[in-house]
């Protein structure tokens, strides 16, 4: 995005099925979401063993405003889950930044105070919920509908190198990341790579690559699915991340903002 500041990203529309998770508490991201259709539930889960329902949002309502407005908060303070099939509009923070900067100082001042108050109330709730959980030591019922994580997936074409986690770690292999989300990626490699190093579901690798913004990332990933049919002479690996540092998670989180 450097050197390209005038290029304001357009609004992205995303759809979620009932039960899918839109935002996960702790994720990096400062985009703002507006509900176009459906219903979205906001939950807090930090420090507690059970979710605390904070709010239900309907058409026209906005979520994700806290990380946008608060300079010191860059991770999501609550999770959002689609309670019905929903459609959301995503505003990239760049759309709002300059307008926010131009806001009259008094309105900004008042906004910041409301934010701080909200942060304090959220802490109070988390604290009370953890006390409640301690008190009710009895095994809690399992979440009847553990939400399915809906990762925002971006199509990319990034050069990647990878090595087996195992006895063949010496062999450096090359491939191209074709799509990536916070949960995993699609890696296209030459079928020849599998001659010397087995590529089977369950096999684990360390992977290095460079994001389009020049940031280097590395992580561990595991093959979930293997597709030989997609292109002749190629293997397409559906991989899940198994280990990723805080720094990489942050870089990737910001890269993957819708």
């Amino acid at each position, binding site marked *: 995005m450097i050197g390209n500041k005038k290029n304001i990203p357009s609004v992205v529309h995303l759809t979620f099925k009932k039960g899918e998770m839109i935002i996960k508490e702790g994720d990096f991201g400062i985009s*703002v979401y*507006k509900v176009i259709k459906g219903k979205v539930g*906001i939950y807090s889960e930090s420090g507690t063993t059970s979710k*605390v329902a*904070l*709010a239900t949002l309907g058409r*026209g*309502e*906005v*979520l994700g*405003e*806290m990380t*946008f*407005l608060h300079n010191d908060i860059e991770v999501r303070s609550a999770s959002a889950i689609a309670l019905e099939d929903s459609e959301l509009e995503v*505003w990239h923070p760049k*759309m*709002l930044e300059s*307008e*926010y900067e131009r*806001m*009259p*100082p*008094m*309105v900004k*001042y*008042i*906004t910041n*105070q*409301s*934010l701080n*108050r*909200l942060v*304090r*109330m*959220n802490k*109070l*709730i988390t604290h*009370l*919920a953890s*006390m*409640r959980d301690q008190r009710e030591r009895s095994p809690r019922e399992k979440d009847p509908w553990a939400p399915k994580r809906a990762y925002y997936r971006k199509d990319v074409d990034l050069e990647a190198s990878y090595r087996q986690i195992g006895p063949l770690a010496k062999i450096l292999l090359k491939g191209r990341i074709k799509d990536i989300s916070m949960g995993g990626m699609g890696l296209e490699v030459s079928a020849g790579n599998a001659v010397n190093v087995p590529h089977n579901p369950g096999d684990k690798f360390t992977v290095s690559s460079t994001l389009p913004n020049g940031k280097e990332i590395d992580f561990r990933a595991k093959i979930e699915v293997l597709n030989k049919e997609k292109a002749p002479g190629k293997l397409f690996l559906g991989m899940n991340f198994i280990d990723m540092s805080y720094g990489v998670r942050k870089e990737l989180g910001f890269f993957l903002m819708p």
Partner: protein
Amino acid sequence: MTIEQFIYGYIAKEETYQDGDIILEEGSSGDWVFVILRGQVKVKKRTPKGMITLDTLKEGEIFGELVLLQTGRKARTASVVADGPLQVGILDNEQLFKDYDAIPQQLRSLLRSLAKRLVNTTNKAVSMVLEHSK
């Protein structure tokens, strides 16, 4: 907290209160926004088990701002009570609302959402405090 200079430009009137005086009463209507110039206040909510204190606000802090951020709201969501001798400034509504109306609609919907979130979260906290005190 020192009071920033630009705030003084908004103060239409100053008032002083004694310890325990109620400046805002939950449920009452009003559209003034206040700033604490000296002293501190307690933010309280009425519950079936009596008043509970949710927050303490100090010098430089604003209260009553929800009438601004949630346009159309008149009823106060909480009571604000002087905690010791108190001096507050009442902000010039006309200037304040003009400022607010001038910001783009998208941003305003963001602030409205923030205000709503604050109201909901506060109510949630109150119900959890009650549940906890059972």
